[in-house]
């Protein structure tokens, strides 16, 4: 029993990471219906900025955290303005392919600058363990878990209760009508990208603290898993990203813990296929018929 509970903790920890990344995915998709495949690499970029802020610039951790989020948000804005904005009137496939291109561009630029070495993220938070009910939880696991939950609430608040959020939702429904109502569509989309990228940086630093290993391709696998998580929960729906992230994390952990680590990815992607077949709108999604 305690083994099972421990596996649940393991699953929730990795699930929080997926949820954090999935939040950014789902937000961008929710507003402009673009699956930003570069999101995993923006996450990787954020980890590097966080790491270098601590190791090279010797910034204290909270400031490094903010610097990483700010720099990564800026990267998100640049990507949006340079790569996606000119394609806003093109087909969705064009934007999707561009996103994949941007993903490779970021990956290989970091590879060129930082080299293929594996770096270790500085352990700035001293890890502590808490044992209860035969289960062990560590401090960083808790930090990741609560960060992802609180960021979800903050995002939900922004989208639902603020003027910016209203603008985002209106852009999501109809860009042209929003523009007619006085919403600055370009700025709204840019801000969405900035927030999504800042979230990715936050996730990256959490991952750095928890998993330590930092390398240029680190965004690829978690990015894909987070995408599955976002689809699982219902892409475009913020609480869905959360639920999807935790579910994928738990499923993966149970497969690894009670089956074999080698099958966990196959199971996760199998689930993606199942969802797309059975309920393409995801767990929390409503089936909205597109008007023709």
């Amino acid at each position, binding site marked *: 029993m305690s083994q099972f509970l*421990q*596996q649940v903790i393991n699953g929730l920890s990795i699930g929080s990471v997926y949820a954090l990344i999935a939040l950014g995915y789902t937000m961008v998709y929710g507003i402009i219906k673009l699956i930003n495949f570069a999101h995993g690499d923006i996450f990787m970029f954020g980890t590097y900025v966080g790491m270098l802020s601590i190791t090279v610039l010797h910034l204290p951790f909270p400031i490094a955290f903010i610097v990483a989020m700010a720099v990564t948000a800026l990267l998100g804005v640049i990507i949006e303005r340079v790569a996606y904005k000119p394609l806003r009137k093109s087909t969705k496939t064009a934007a999707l392919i561009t996103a994949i291109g941007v993903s490779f561009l970021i990956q290989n630029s970091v590879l060129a600058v930082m080299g293929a070495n594996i770096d270790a993220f500085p352990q700035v938070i001293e890890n502590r363990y808490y044992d209860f009910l035969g289960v062990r939880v560590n401090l960083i696991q808790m930090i990741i878990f609560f960060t992802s939950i609180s960021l979800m609430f903050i995002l939900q608040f922004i989208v639902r209760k603020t003027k910016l959020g209203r603008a985002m939702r209106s852009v999501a429904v109809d860009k042209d009508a929003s523009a007619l109502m006085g919403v600055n569509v370009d700025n709204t989309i840019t801000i969405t990208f900035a927030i999504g990228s800042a979230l990715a940086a936050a996730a990256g630093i959490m991952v750095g603290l928890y998993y*330590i290993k930092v390398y240029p391709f680190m965004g690829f696998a978690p990015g894909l898993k987070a995408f599955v998580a976002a689809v699982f929960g219902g892409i475009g729906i913020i609480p869905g990203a959360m639920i999807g992230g935790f579910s994928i994390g738990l499923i993966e952990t149970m497969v690894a*813990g*009670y089956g074999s680590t*080698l099958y966990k990815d196959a199971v996760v992607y199998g689930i993606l296929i199942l969802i797309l077949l059975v309920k393409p709108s995801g767990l929390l999604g409503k089936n909205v018929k597109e008007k023709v």
Partner: protein
Amino acid sequence: MKKLLSILAITLLALSGLTACSTTPKTIKIGLNLELTGEVSVYGVPEKLAAQLAVDEINAAGGINGKDVELVIYDNAYDSAKAVENAQKLVEDGVVAMLGSATSAPTLAIGPVALENQVLTITPSGSNAKVTMNGDVVNPYVFRACFIDPFQGLVLANFAYDNLSAKKAVVMGSNSSDYAKDLAKIFGDQFTANGGEVLQVGGDVSWYADADTDFSAQLTSIAALGDFDVLFVADYAARAGLIIGQARAIPGLENVAIIGPDGFESPSLNDLAGGAANVNNVYFSTHFSTLLTDTKVQTFIDNYTAAAGEAPSALSALAYDSMYMLFAAIKTANSTDPVKVRDALEATTAFAGVSGTISFDEFHNPIKSAIVVKLTDGLQTEAIVVNP
């Protein structure tokens, strides 16, 4: 008269030719064909320094069979084509034997040249199994001084069973590399043959993939297996470090002995394990350690440090042993004929080197002791010699 003169001239010519043939060279030439520049010069340079030290020592002691040893040094810059060119130049220079290369790829390229020209070559550290082979049979002219990777699985199984008194082991490894797969298999087989038991977690090896970063689920299941004495991780530091760090956070695995191959030996191991404090009761096998207390080793360390300005690495030790094995073979053969030297080298038994006591198996791989190094708080604190 004319005729007489011409006869005389011919005789003289013939005589001079004879003299040239019978004049033996004053020195014994040994060629170095190493990576002295380029991306892996960190391997080649210490080997050159160690070879130089060995030559200086033997010459100071009067040379071999009364002749001084002379090194002919060529840099191959980790370029296989260059390595082949160097080998051909060394053959023309009339070397008795060649030392090189430090890494496997250039050594593989040198193999055919050595075979074709019947010139012995010995690689101190080329660990690829194919290096000493010519297709499916052994290349009679290529030897190596380091043990090959899978051999460590055998040594570590003996170490776990004999030195750590482990009766139950769990084996983890990456299923993406031959290095890990061979090691995991050989460790498991040998540990079982010794009388130990390998606990099962989804097959006899608990596999993972190279890209994995989260091992907590797997380690939690391993911890649930109950009492076992040793966790064998067949992998490089990139993942072994993470596994060590994550294992130490799991109830039941805080103090279990974690052992692994020379892939553990990396400056990043402690960082990836989340700090040196997590790296306790960790052991890895290697070729050489400066912690060895043997007087022969200590003398080597002192002399090398004095000559090179830094402590010797495993590579220096292996190159040093390679040179002395060559010296011994030349002495035994009492000849500088490469074929006779080769025969003598092949017959090497129980050669006492600084990296262990060496004999060769049928594939020219050394059968030798390995060193197991203990890490305490991330530092090397003890070196144990383990015989195969």
